[in-house]
């Protein structure tokens, strides 16, 4: 039997992008809020960088993929039936410890996909409903960027200037200008100067630099530490097994287990799930009861369904110049949104963004991470390495991923993690629309790289290792028949149960999701406080 803990007003499960933001907002109200995190605090001095073995750590203990990392607080994701491998990090701050902090916003059209293009669904909220929360989040996380992008609505002044473009960024920008294509310096939650106690990146250094890692915003610093000053209680190494309801279906709290195997029942007035697009449906599907035999909040049958990833393709270009294309942030430099919207003359609906990606460190260059195959072994190894190292750059194509029921998260009935919680298993196939879209993107990226002076390009039609963005598995909508949560992210089936991570995304857009996830989390906190 779990040990009963005294009632609290609100329990938030998960301390990443959304959980941290929501916890801070709620903590300002004086409510008793407990934040449960399955991982531990992350010491920023542990970021790989400044030591020669940083690339060894990135391929092992600091790998994006929990199945590879296999740390004590990670759970395995059964992904052999997925075209793309899901990625996440488990610690206070969640995956904001392990991201490039590339932070574009959704476009207004992204919330009206069905009305505009006749596919997928409209969101029950609009860009304008989120606008002030985007602005607040940009201040809290610290956004480097510049206003005036013609591809997006005007927005508030960015708190910091853009990160430097570098010689390679300028080359791409000038090539886009010559082609008459859109480009703009990317918004980034990587500080271009000292900001709110965070160290600013000083325009020196490489991606290997620890200082550069530490300039990246993570919610343990930006949101959770100030929330603790407001009275937030954080409990680490606590894995939630299920959400509890009484015989009438009324929410009562959560059951979780700590890292010593002790089980607790935390009674709560409200529960907010912020465990990402895989962790959240995992908990809901594991929360079966007589009254909810198919899992909690699942009367629509949509919990776990409509998994969206943002499939990526990439094109890598080689340059003759002896220039240092490995300096600076890896990925948040330039965004191109010339092909963002539907064009009826193309063989796909919706569109994509380009993101410029830099060369990486020497071992990653040799291993061909992402854009290319590994440098050949044997007699030609050194010549091939020299051809690539610091002399290549890539364009990543991030595509809108339309929701499809067969792409889904389930829980395995037999396999469990160390806490006895069923493992999630993923079923995901890219669609014909996605493949056509990515093919178009690769041709466009090739054109841009050749215009920029590349003498050779190669293509990767699908980055299988790029499952950073986990969305859609507890869809937002107004109709309980075809959605899981309402426009305030409260589940239709269970009052006082909320979901605020990427699970609630109705559609995916074609940009990185974190600012939108956090804006939704802040908006939900406001709705809870009003209630």
């Amino acid at each position: 039997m779990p040990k009963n803990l005294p009632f609290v007003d609100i329990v938030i499960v998960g301390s990443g992008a959304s959980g941290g933001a929501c916890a801070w907002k709620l903590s300002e109200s004086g409510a008793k809020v407990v934040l449960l995190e399955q991982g531990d605090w992350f010491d920023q001095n542990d970021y790989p960088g400044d030591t020669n073995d940083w690339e060894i750590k990135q391929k092992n203990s600091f790998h994006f993929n929990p199945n590879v990392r296999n740390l004590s607080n990670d759970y395995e994701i059964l992904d052999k039936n997925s075209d793309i491998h899901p990625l996440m990090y488990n610690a206070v701050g969640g995956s904001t410890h392990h991201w490039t902090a590339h932070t574009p916003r959704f476009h207004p059209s992204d919330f009206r996909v069905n009305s505009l293009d006749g596919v997928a669904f409209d969101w029950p909220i609009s860009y304008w409903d989120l606008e002030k929360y985007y602005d607040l989040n940009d201040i809290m996380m610290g956004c480097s960027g510049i206003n005036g992008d013609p591809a997006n609505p005007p927005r508030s002044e960015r708190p910091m200037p853009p990160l430097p473009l570098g010689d390679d960024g300028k080359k791409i920008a000038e090539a886009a200008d010559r082609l008459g294509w859109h480009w703009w310096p990317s918004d980034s939650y990587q500080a271009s100067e000292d900001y709110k106690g965070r160290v600013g990146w000083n325009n020196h250094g490489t991606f290997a630099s620890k200082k550069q890692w530490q300039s990246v915003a993570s919610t343990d610093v930006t949101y959770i530490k100030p929330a603790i000053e407001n009275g937030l209680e954080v409990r680490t190494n606590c894995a939630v097994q299920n959400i509890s309801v009484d015989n009438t279906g009324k929410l009562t709290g959560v059951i979780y287990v700590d890292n010593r195997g002790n089980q607790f029942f935390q009674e709560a007035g409200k529960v907010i799930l912020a465990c990402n697009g895989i962790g959240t449906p995992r908990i809901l599907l594991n929360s079966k009861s007589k009254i909810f035999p198919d899992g909690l909040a699942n009367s629509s049958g949509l919990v776990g369904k409509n998994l969206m990833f943002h499939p990526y393709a990439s094109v890598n270009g080689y340059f003759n110049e002896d220039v240092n294309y490995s300096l600076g942030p890896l990925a948040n430099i330039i965004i191109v949104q010339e092909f963002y919207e539907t064009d009826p003359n193309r063989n796909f609906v919706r569109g994509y963004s380009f993101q410029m990606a830099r060369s990486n460190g020497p071992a990653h260059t040799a291993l061909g991470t992402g854009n290319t195959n590994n440098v050949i072994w044997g007699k030609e190894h050194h010549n091939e390495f020299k051809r690539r190292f610091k002399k290549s750059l890539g364009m990543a194509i991030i595509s809108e991923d339309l929701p499809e029921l067969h792409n889904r998260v389930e829980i395995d009935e037999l396999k469990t993690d160390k806490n006895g919680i069923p493992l999630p298993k993923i079923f995901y196939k890219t669609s014909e629309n996605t493949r056509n879209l990515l093919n178009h993107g690769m041709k466009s990226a090739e054109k841009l790289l050749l215009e920029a002076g590349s003498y050779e390009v190669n293509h990767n039609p699908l980055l299988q290792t790029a499952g950073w963005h986990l969305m859609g598995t507890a869809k937002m909508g107004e109709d309980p028949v075809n959605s899981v949560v309402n426009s305030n992210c409260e589940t239709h089936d269970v009052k006082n149960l909320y979901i605020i991570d990427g699970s609630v995304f109705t559609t995916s857009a074609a940009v990185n999701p974190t600012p939108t996830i956090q804006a939704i989390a802040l908006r939900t906190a406001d709705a809870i406080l009003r209630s």
Partner: protein
Amino acid sequence: MSISNNEIDILYSFFDQIIPSSDDMPCATEAIDKKDFEILISENSKYEISIDQIIYFIKREPTSRVGGGASSLSEIQKGEILELMESIIPDDFLMLIEIVYLLYYSKSEIHEKIGWNTDELAEENKMEAFDDSILNNIKKREPFWRKA
């Protein structure tokens, strides 16, 4: 991972086929200490299955089973075995490549030779701050975001 010293020696002896020396670059075993290899595979479980497969593959190859066994393979025979390994057990082979490349390109002497300087204050690592004059052209474009 249970791997014998002899098996470590056998695997290590293949490294120079993967990264041989060139005019200005050392071969793999000149840069990588055998101990580095042992530590990497003992501390990271993801290599375990592949290392087992690779050792099994080497030992069962006919060239290894005749004469003095895997320990007495010629450099040409090692190269042939690696080519076979790459085509027959490609995923495991890639793990071996990953190990050798990670270890080799994590060495200071290699960084020096290829010009990789992680000192963020070094002059060669300096980047110019963002200059918004580069936006002059794109700023002329009328807003084109889709109204909704």
